[in-house]
C-alpha cells in the first residue's frame, strides 16, 4: 500500500516490554504485530493515534513530616501535554494533614483529569 510506514514500538504496559511492529498510514494503523497480549495492541494503536501517559511528580506541602508530597494524574494525559502539566504543579502548595488520593488540582488543562496525592501526610510533631 502506498504511503504505509513501519514503526517499531516498545509496549509500556508491563515489564515484558514487547517490541511491537506497527504498519500505519499517517496515524491510521493497518496492522500490529509482535505483542504478546491484547493490551499491547491497544497500546500500539493509541500510541500511533494519540499517545497517553500517566504523570507522576511531587508538590510542596506545608506543616508535613516531609516537605514534598508525591502526586499522580488520576488518568492518562496526552503525552504532548506532560511538560506543561508539570509546570502547573510548580507553584502548588498543599497543607498537611492530607489523605491519600486527595485532589490537589482539578480538571488539568480541561482534560477532566485531576492531580491526586499518592500518600497521606501527617502534620509534623503529631
Amino acid at each position, binding site marked *: 500500500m502506498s504511503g504505509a510506514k513501519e514503526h517499531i*514500538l*516498545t*509496549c*509500556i*504496559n*508491563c*515489564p*515484558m*516490554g*514487547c*517490541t511491537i511492529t506497527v504498519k500505519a498510514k499517517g496515524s491510521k494503523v493497518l496492522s500490529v504485530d509482535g505483542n*504478546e497480549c491484547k493490551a499491547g495492541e491497544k497500546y500500539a494503536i493509541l500510541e500511533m493515534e494519540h499517545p497517553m*501517559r*500517566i504523570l*507522576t*511528580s*511531587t508538590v*510542596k506541602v506545608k506543616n508535613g*513530616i*516531609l*516537605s*514534598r508530597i*508525591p*502526586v*499522580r494524574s488520576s488518568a492518562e494525559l496526552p*503525552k504532548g501535554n*506532560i*511538560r506543561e502539566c*508539570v509546570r502547573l504543579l510548580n507553584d502548588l502548595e498543599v497543607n498537611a494533614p492530607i489523605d*491519600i488520593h486527595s485532589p490537589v488540582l482539578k480538571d488539568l488543562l480541561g482534560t477532566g483529569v485531576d492531580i491526586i496525592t*499518592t*500518600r*497521606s501526610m501527617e502534620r509534623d510533631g503529631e
Partner: protein
Amino acid sequence: MNAKVAVIGGGPAGLGAAVAAYEAGINPEDIHIIERDMELGGILQQCIHNGFGQLIFGEMMTGPEYASHYIDEVLKAGIRFHLNTMVLDISPDRVITAVNQEECLMRINADSIILAMGCRERTRYQIHLPGERPAGIYPAGTVQRLINIEGALPGRRAVILGSGDIGMIMARRLVLEGAEVEGVYEIMGSPSGLPRNVQQCLRDFEIPLHLSHTVTGIHGNRRLEGVTISRVNPESLKPMPGTERYVECDTLVLSVGLIPENELSEGAGIKLDGWTGGPIVDEERETSVDGIFGCGNAVHVYDLVDDVTKSSELAGRSAARYVKGETICREHVLSITAGENVRYTVPQHIRKQSDEPVEVFFRVYLEAANVKLQALVAAEVISEESRRVVKPPIMEKIILQGDLLPVDGEIIIQVVEK
C-alpha cells in the same frame, strides 16, 4: 523482649512477610517489624513513579500507593513495629541487638527471624571509576531521594552512567524538574533496565542512550565540571583508545547495579551465595541458619515489587510454620543447579517435605529468542516452558510440581533453543 517472628526491615518485603505471618495464625503482638527509617514503606516512599502492583492488584500503582496498602494491613492487624530503630547484630541463636532513642539498647529474643533488609546501590568505588573526587557524583537512588523526598535538584546538567531502571527513571525526573540530561551511557551492548523504561523515560524525552560506552574520567576540583566518555570494545568491555570525548556536566548519576544488603546476615553466620550476594535459601526461604528466613531484595534483586511481596509472603508463612513446629524436612536435600544460560537460581536447594509446587526464579546470561526453560532431573525434563524471548534484565521463573521431585540428587535449570 520476646518475639515469635521478628522482621528486619519495614519495606515492601518486611511488610509482606509480617502480614503473611499474621494471616498464618501468629498473634500480631508477637510479630515485631524493626525499621531504621522514621516511617514504614522503605524505598517505595521515594519511588513516586507508577508501574507497581500489576501482578498482585491488576493495576498500575505508584510506590507510595503500593506501600500504603501494606502499611494499612499492618496497622489493621495490630502488628508491632519499631521505627527509627537500627539493628546492630543478629546472633545465630536469634538474639537481635538494636538501638533507638527511646530505649537506647534493646534485645529481642526471637523464635524466628525474617531478613528483609533490601539492597544497596553499587558505588563509584565498586566500579573503579577513575579521576578526581569532586562533589556532584550520586548513586541514582540518592538523586531519587533528593528530588522526590527533599525537593532538591542535585544539579543542572547531568550525565547518567548505567542504564539500570532507577537511572532511567531519574533521567526523566531530572528533565521534568528542569535539569538537562546529556545522555545515558551503558557499558554493555544492551540496556540493563526494563524495555518499558527505555521507552517511557528516555525515548519519550529524547534522551540519548549510548550503548557500549562508559565514563573513563572525572574532572572538577570542588564541583564536578565534566566527564570523559569512551567507547568500549563490546567483547572485552575495555575502553578503546582514541574514542575519548569530553562532556561538560555538574552531575554524574550512577545506575550501575544493586547489591543485597547482608552485613547482618554475615554476622549471624548465614551462608551467602556468591552470585546473588544474598543468603542461600531453600524453597521456604529458610537460610542456612535454623529459624532465620530471607526475602525480597536481601536475597536477590528483583525487577518487580510484586515479586518481592510474593517472596516475602512465602517467607512469612514459612516462619509461622517453623514457629508452630509444623516444618518437616526431607531426608535428602535436593540441590538446584544453574545450567546453560542461567546465571543463578533462587531457591538454591529444596529441603522440606511438601507436595506444594516450587517456583524457581533465575536470570539468564544472554538474550535469546524462541527458547525453552527446562528443569532436568537425571537428564529427564520434569518441567518445561516456552518463551519468545529471554533477556538478562527480566527475571524468569519455572514451576516444579511437588509430586515430580526426586527423592535426592540435583535439579538442573537451563535455557535452550527450541
